[in-house]
């Protein structure tokens, strides 16, 4: 999950800006630290060779320089920030090969639901995407806030109930990555890590077809069961019954998740797990 080992263009651009910014700042930070330690050492009271200049308390030239150095740095970095914010806006398109894949992500207590509306399938805690294609994410939450984040693909974004956020990513290399929630959401929060399988664009339709063979169906009823509080250790997959399910969740036609009081069996088996600890 190393941020400096990006696997897609967004993460690559993010980390380039990250590293560049650090170096721009190091250019003035390192000499300043050396000057602090150097001045402190040289002007120690016990050094007879240091010249005592108690009247050196103002210098227009020095003032100009000390205001100018941080100001110039900030002007430079401000430019980086302005351009970067626009180029790397999470909603900005990330062109890729092949047709874009639409994915609707819902953060539940405490798992991730990924709906593929065009493929009419859905997965929990595992995200499978074709390499090289543009990935259009729409995100919302069933209950509390979370943050969707795949460190090696870049740009995290909040999920909030009753709202839809947008994020476009692309994964360039086949392989396994990991994603997580980056916003604390309650007792099961650390178990909100999910697998990201980047597979070849040729294998993707095959994976879709295999997944669609499952008996489990995702509709409003099974979704309501899924959104009960609890941890999901398995990787269930569903056939999607109604491609508008995500819209029903995001517009609160399906009411928000119930929280601990109404959490029934799932919640209880979860709290039963505590005793074993």
């Amino acid at each position, binding site marked *: 999950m190393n941020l400096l080992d990006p696997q897609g263009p967004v993460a690559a651009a993010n980390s380039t800006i990250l590293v560049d910014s650090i170096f721009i700042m190091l250019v003035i*930070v390192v000499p300043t630290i050396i000057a602090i330690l150097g001045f402190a050492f040289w002007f120690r009271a016990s050094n007879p060779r240091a010249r*005592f200049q108690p009247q050196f308390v103002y210098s227009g030239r020095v003032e100009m320089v000390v205001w100018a150095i941080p100001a110039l740095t900030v002007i430079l970095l401000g430019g980086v920030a302005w351009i*970067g914010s626009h180029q790397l806006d999470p909603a900005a398109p990330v062109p890729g090969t092949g047709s874009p894949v639409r994915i609707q992500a819902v953060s539940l207590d405490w798992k991730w639901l990924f709906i593929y509306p065009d493929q009419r399938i859905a997965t929990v805690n595992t995200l499978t995407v074709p390499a090289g294609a543009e990935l259009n994410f729409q995100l919302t939450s069933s209950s509390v806030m979370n943050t969707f*984040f795949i460190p090696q693909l870049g740009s995290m974004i909040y999920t909030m109930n009753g709202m839809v956020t947008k994020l476009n990513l692309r994964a360039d290399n086949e392989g396994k990555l990991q994603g997580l929630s980056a916003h604390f959401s309650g007792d099961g*929060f650390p178990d909100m890590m999910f697998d990201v399988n980047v597979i070849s664009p040729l294998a993707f339709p095959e994976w879709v077809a295999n997944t669609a063979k499952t008996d489990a169906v995702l509709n409003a009823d099974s979704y309501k069961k899924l959104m009960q509080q609890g941890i999901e250790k398995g990787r269930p997959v569903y056939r999607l019954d109604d491609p508008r399910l995500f819209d029903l969740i995001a517009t609160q036609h399906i009411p928000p998740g119930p929280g601990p009081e109404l959490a029934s069996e799932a919640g209880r088996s979860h709290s039963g797990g505590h005793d074993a600890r």
Partner: protein
Amino acid sequence: MLGKLDWSAIPFDQPIPLVAGAMVLVAILGVLTWVVVKGHLPYLWSEWITSVDHKRIGVMYILLASVMLLRGGSDAIMMRIQQAVAYQSQGYLPPEHYNQIFSAHGTIMIFFVAMPFVIGLMNLVVPLQLGVRDVAFPTLNSVGFWLTATGALLVNVSLVVGEFARTGWLAFPPLSELSYSPGVGVDYYAWSLQISGVGTLVAGINLVTTVLKLRTKGMNYLRMPMFCWTTLASNLLIVAAFPILTATLAMLLLDRYLGFHFFTNEAGGNVMMFMNLIWAWGHPEVYILVLPAFGVFSEVVSTFSGKALFGYRSMVLATMAICVISFMVWLHHFFTMGAGPDVNAIFGIASMIIAVPTGVKIYNWLFTMYGGRIRFATPMLWSVGFMVTFIIGGLTGVLVAVPPADFMLHNSMFLVAHFHNVIIGGVLFGAFAGFEYWFPKAFGFRLDERWGKAAFWFTFLGFYVTFMPLYIAGMLGMTRRMQHYDVAAWRPWMIVAAVGMAVLTIGVICQIMQLVISIRNREALRDRTGDPWDGRSLEWATSSPPPVFNFAFNPDVRGEDAYWEMKAHARQQSFEHEELEYQDIEMPRNSPTGFVCAFFAAIMGFALIWHIWWMVILGGIGAFATFVVFAWRDHDEYVIPAEEVARIDRINIEERRSLVSMAGAV
């Protein structure tokens, strides 16, 4: 009868909080028994609890902060151990406990350690530096302190009665709403902060008024010591920002208690509104904490370099610039909400702009050292340690102000490392520097230098060993608040951080040892001059500890570094001066108002948390009655007769004169 309160509120099944709570209870009872048996109670009551003397209140604030530092530090130790062991396992803390610990750690460290520490230092020092006898509203000052202590008390009660919030230190809804946090944890959090928030607001109003209205003869704004300027800026921010916190928490409480929908998922509530409001307070809060620390460093660096502060006017400008800009950057706490590129970029750049005046401050301290004669006493060590550490914290801070970089680092361990970098390296180092620097003024004896230096080095190194690994863990994608994890790459850094925590703990132990040893050797460390560091501002012009009236005569200030000029003047003219005409001094009477008011506030707060409505009414009436009684008081001042003033002042002058003549003989 007792609302939601019953025996199930006591966590009999959780040994850690119960044992910790029992130990604290035993310690408190032990101290109380000792106080009563030894007959110290009347002294405590009349000299401390009911005192309205700004110096005493300042000391009590710092005492509160120090005790709470131990509590918050214990939480930190538990968290670091948990993350070191909880790799592919549950560790030793279940999530419901771990989540309370990190929430309590943040809440305590900000509201009940950093805040009381800096407010305590400002209380203690600012009136002395301004050359006046007290703050503007002495009784209100006492009320402010005791309300802060009430908040701290309630947070600690939650350890054994009920639970604390499990939502993080800012209790973001909808997680903190009733449907997702049905317990009393969030109520403990919110009511503690409401009560202590009133105390902080009162302290802020008091200190702003003091700086603006009570300055001695000749103390213009541009002759005030830098610490007074940063106090002014910090307290202006308190007055402007704390009402936002109070209003925001009031809305959350209305949601929880009366079924409102400000921040709920349902019925048009808006969580983004909470984010905006809480950070509209939260970002200025950071500068409320760090500005007084900047003030401390300005005083310390100038004193121990034997030079006036370099670029004084530039420093004033930088301070006030920070004060204003800090209100315009709150959105950088949630770039990842998807607000759009223009908004993100504008707030990102605004956040970077704050780095300009902050950078200027660093350079001005640097040039204060240039051409100086630097004495490396403990306060100066903390200051140099601060400059180096804070620059690194500033670098990572500007980094997360760049939105595309923040998209990778937001809420990560990198962020955790960043804000500890600036709060420990800035606020805490500043608090310790101020503690070492002004301790002789408050108590009349210096602190042991050897233990002080040991404390510095262990804390300094411990900080780096603890938090540099967290930067790296953040770069490896680790997010904050993980009760357990399965990623092997994070593990080694968590172990290193736990080792660093041990080093930090040794630093704290050294600090305690320093205090113990210094109290034992206080006769040898006695400061009879009132000016142990060869200081420059007016607090060093009076004895250590200062008499209750601070100055027998209001000092006449003729320039920056008022006391330095007086000393130079006195050296030229020899010490013979005309016979002084002492006058009666009126001082504010002690008042139990603060303590009694806080007592009722504590009852009311506890009752509100547990829905014990009759007790709420009782506490409310009690607090109001206290206020009415205070408002109708007849005598609020007493007179110290001129002879008494003369006697106290002559002793001080004699001591100083004998020391000067002794020095002359050598």
